[in-house]
């Protein structure tokens, strides 16, 4: 008799959930990053949000940040972390291709390109 079922939702499930909670408790799904336990009145929702915040918040923020940096209609200069074009991303190369390095590098390059256009 199997009593336990293991489920492994993708990150998008958690993104959808925090957006749903944000719409429900602060009235705007796009403000999901402002959610906190104090505004969530339902105990089950609060537990689930606590879990997401402790385990997945950085991942959600990273995904949000990256999608903001690369809107769908724009060609992504750097691509995904693990498919970076060799030589196209010096920070990632030096720092062994870690995602946080990639993000920081992208932020720096955007800053440089802005300065170059002044």
């Amino acid at each position, binding site marked *: 008799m*199997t*009593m*336990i079922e*293991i489920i492994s*939702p*993708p990150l998008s499930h958690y993104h959808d959930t925090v957006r749903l909670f944000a719409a429900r408790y602060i009235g705007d799904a796009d403000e999901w990053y402002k959610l906190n336990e104090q505004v969530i009145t339902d105990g*089950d929702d609060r537990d689930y949000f606590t*879990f997401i915040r*402790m385990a*997945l918040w950085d991942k959600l923020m990273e995904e949000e940040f990256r999608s903001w940096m690369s809107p769908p209609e724009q060609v992504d200069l750097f691509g995904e972390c693990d498919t970076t074009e060799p030589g196209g991303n010096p920070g990632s190369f030096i720092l062994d291709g870690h995602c946080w390095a990639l993000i920081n590098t992208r932020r720096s390059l955007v800053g440089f390109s802005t300065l170059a256009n002044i």
Partner: protein
Amino acid sequence: MGAYQYAEIIGRLLNSCEYLDPRPCFPSKIEFAPTDPPSFYWKQKFFLLNDKVLTVKDIATFDSEGRMVDRAFAYDFCDKGSPQPIWRICNHSNSMKSVNDPCHVHVGHDDNEIALANTSHDIDFTYAMRCIKKFYLQKPQDWEEGGCDES
């Protein structure tokens, strides 16, 4: 013991528990979040013999060595329909807390709190099932006089 091992233990404990009421409440879903290592989320209500109910909240993150790092948990054992627990073992888990923080048992009333352990390393679902067994065998719990014996 990582999240997967913990889930396996839970499954074995439930499969071998002789006090579960046969009312259908299965399968119980344990959720593993896409973290490395996986994080663990489980909430479930079980019906037990003699109109007793065990409500479980067990949420945990793990380190790469498979050790629990942070937890929010409550094992609430009560009479069916009763708002007060016969006992509830918890770490006051409105938010996740370190496993190095103490945990408590509430007996008969939410205000009646007894310190149970200085950490919650060993106060997991296995411990809760041991308490269930002691209840049905009418043996003293660890927090009761004559308790703390291995059974």
